């Protein structure tokens, strides 16, 4: 049975088992400490600090590709499952309760934000690449603007030629009022990320409705404009998805570094105001 599982499935099962095992061990130790009236908050606190420092090293690994520090994919696995361990330690350390002081709130909010942004990041990284495959060729992020400009230029040329060659202004009017702005910049980012396609359907219906007002040459131009709208829509999808795949890191990484600083402050204060037998 094990042989029929893919390597990724086996890896996921192993890592999950490790996290669950470590969490159970932590819960057992905490329970034992409570029943024996030991205070292990400093132990869990320093463990959490160590874990978060370890997780932050992944960013360092990504910035030093010139050294043989192991594959980034292995580091990411450690980062993801180490992150879940950190959540377990955090819940143990805080008693799974809500914060009730200013400093606790200042620690609690970034930790939760880092956890949520990280989880969203994993989800985006696993879902969006597959969806991008269904929306045209994968464009390099840096080249999307250039490609968009090319499409816009072709659409504009078509609109101009329609007025010149067919003697009709229907297409040119529609282009000026509706399509010109559509081709100029990325559109419908939120709709793309949520999978909504209504805007494209509406656009295509509008173009389709113009067919009755133009001649045979106009039909050809409208068909090509319809194709360009679809190509542009795919390009917008690529842009929205790739932007999301980049932007979550701009939330996650700075928050994580901020959290590290706050934890360090918290540790100093905790030791400074430590009461009772050490």
């Amino acid at each position, binding site marked *: 049975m094990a042989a029929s599982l*893919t*390597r990724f499935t086996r890896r996921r099962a192993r890592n999950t088992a490790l996290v669950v095992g470590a969490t159970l061990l932590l819960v057992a130790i905490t329970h034992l400490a409570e029943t024996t009236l030991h205070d292990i908050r400093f132990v869990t606190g320093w463990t959490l600090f160590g874990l978060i420092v370890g997780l932050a090293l992944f960013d360092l690994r*990504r910035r030093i590709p*010139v050294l*043989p520090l192991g594959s980034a994919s292995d580091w990411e696995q450690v980062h993801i499952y180490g992150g879940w361990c950190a959540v377990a330690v955090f819940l143990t350390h805080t008693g799974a309760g809500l914060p009730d002081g200013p400093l606790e709130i200042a620690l609690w909010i970034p930790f939760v934000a880092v956890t949520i942004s990280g989880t969203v990041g994993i989800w985006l990284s696993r879902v969006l*690449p597959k969806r991008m*495959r269904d929306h045209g060729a994968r464009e*390099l992020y840096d080249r999307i603007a250039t490609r968009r400009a090319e499409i816009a230029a072709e659409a504009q040329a078509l609109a101009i030629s329609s007025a010149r060659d067919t003697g009709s202004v229907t297409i040119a009017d529609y282009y000026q009022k509706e399509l010109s702005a559509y081709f100029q910049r990325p559109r419908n980012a939120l709709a793309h990320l949520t999978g909504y396609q209504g805007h494209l359907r509406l656009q295509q219906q509008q173009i389709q409705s113009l067919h009755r007002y133009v001649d045979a040459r106009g039909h050809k131009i409208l068909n090509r404009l319809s194709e360009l709208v679809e190509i542009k829509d795919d390009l917008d999808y690529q842009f929205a998805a790739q932007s999301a795949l980049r932007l979550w890191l701009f939330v996650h990484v700075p928050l994580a570094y901020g959290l590290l600083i706050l934890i360090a402050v918290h540790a100093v204060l905790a030791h400074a105001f430590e009461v009772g037998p050490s």
Partner: protein
Amino acid sequence: MSAETTAISRPRRWDNPFDPDLSTADVERILAAPVFRDLDPNRFPPGQSLPDIVRNDARINRYQRGDIVVLEGDYGNSVFVILSGKVNVLYGYLPEIGRPPRRARRPFWNALAQLWRNSREIETRTLSPSARAVHMRANRGRAYLPDIERVIAEHSVTPLEHGDMFGEISALSRGPRTATVFADTDCELIELRWQGLRDLRARDPDLRERVDHLHRTRSLLAHLSESPLFAHLDEATIALVAQEIRFENHGTQELFPTGELPTESGGSLAGEPLIAEEGSLTDDLIMIRAGFARVTEHLDHGNRTVGYLKNNDVFGLEEIVRQWRGNGSVPLRNSLRAIGYLDILRVPAVVMERYVLPTMPEHLLPVAADTDIRATPVWKRDESATGIEQPLVDFLIDERIINGTQSMVIDLDRCTGCDDCVKACAATHDGNPRFVRQGPSHDDVMIANACMHCVDAVCLIGCPTGAIHRDLSSGDVHINDDTCIGCGTCSRSCPYGNIVMVEIADKAGTVITDRETGAAIRRATKCDLCAGQLGGPACQRACPNDALVRLDMSNPGEMVAWLHR
């Protein structure tokens, strides 16, 4: 002032001779030696005279008894002519002398310092005179047989002496050495690198015929000795078989003979000459000597690709074995077509039945095709014989990706476009990425525009200086930046567009120009698999999503394992 520092004389072919210390007397000695003395100097134009070629592309090597001249499996492109002494050719035995060390890896701290030493400007170079004098390729270092008498006594050796030539198989086929050659006595050898041999062959038909004849006859024996089908035969029988074998060349040197990718409407097999047709009589065993072939079977009005064959693969063996076992005349099950150029050997079926099959070990005989599989309509079969799903194998063959030994394959279902691979590549190459994260794709598989380090690296053929070359031990294709003259021949030759010509700049970022014409000086650049870097290709190590891998396409098993990971 700035113009003075950024203008140089355009590098030329003759700037980096094979042996900078070769004297005029040595050149005259080479020209008086066998092979060279038969060349007609009048066939060479003034700008590329025979002495010029010899001075630039030849050198005289001296060996002591027992020294290894070439080692089987090493990659080399020189031919040798014996000036004095004797050498022995050793087939099928690999001396335990160890491979030459791989390219030296930089020290840890040196690698780390790259983080801040990388240039902020693109494609910068330091053009010091010493850098220009860097030699074309390092020698493998002295290696010798520790027990020469025992090797000669226990193994079959072919002696060569004054005036004999060897090394032409690797030079012409761009493949690894097929035999080991060691010095039987103290000897002197003329070594002529590929660029010189190419020019001499182009100008002198007699030499071309002589070299090609040697190539045909010797590579045949080498090929037979490498093939497991003939390994059980004694030398006399192999000689008998060799006499009956026919050489054939098919296809063209162009991997895409029509100038573009095959299209469905134009027939995906356009430009791929038919060598053996399904349903015809099985008269010969076909052995692939060089190049690639497509195996197909009829399906309605088209042909389904079953798989592809490469060097040392055979076609028609199963049918010949069935004929030999008394099944009467067995027609060919599949068709065979040339992809690009293809060199084949035809071994007549009667020769196989008389000399080869009766004594062939049972485990080498092919198992008859699974009747259940044969009964399944072809359109219902999920995978080709390679184990890869049918549309993907069509894609890999149509795009000629099968030529790659280190193809950069990206799983689009996992690639987030983070560009960590590109950044890692740039960080290890002085700030300049050596590939583009784009390329032909099929479904979730993309083949990025990165040098594939091809089985048949056609980029090597035209290089005037030998700047683009194979690594002696690994066979990876590298460009020596110091000896590249920026002619662009390799870039134009690469069928995949994976070699990029760049304008180089000085440390201040000013483009370096030719002092005479003012034109920008260019260099060829491409992926070098992070040669010399710690840890291997940085792109693969940098991918956090397990989306990027370097795969040997001549081994479909690697691809299958990766797809099902």
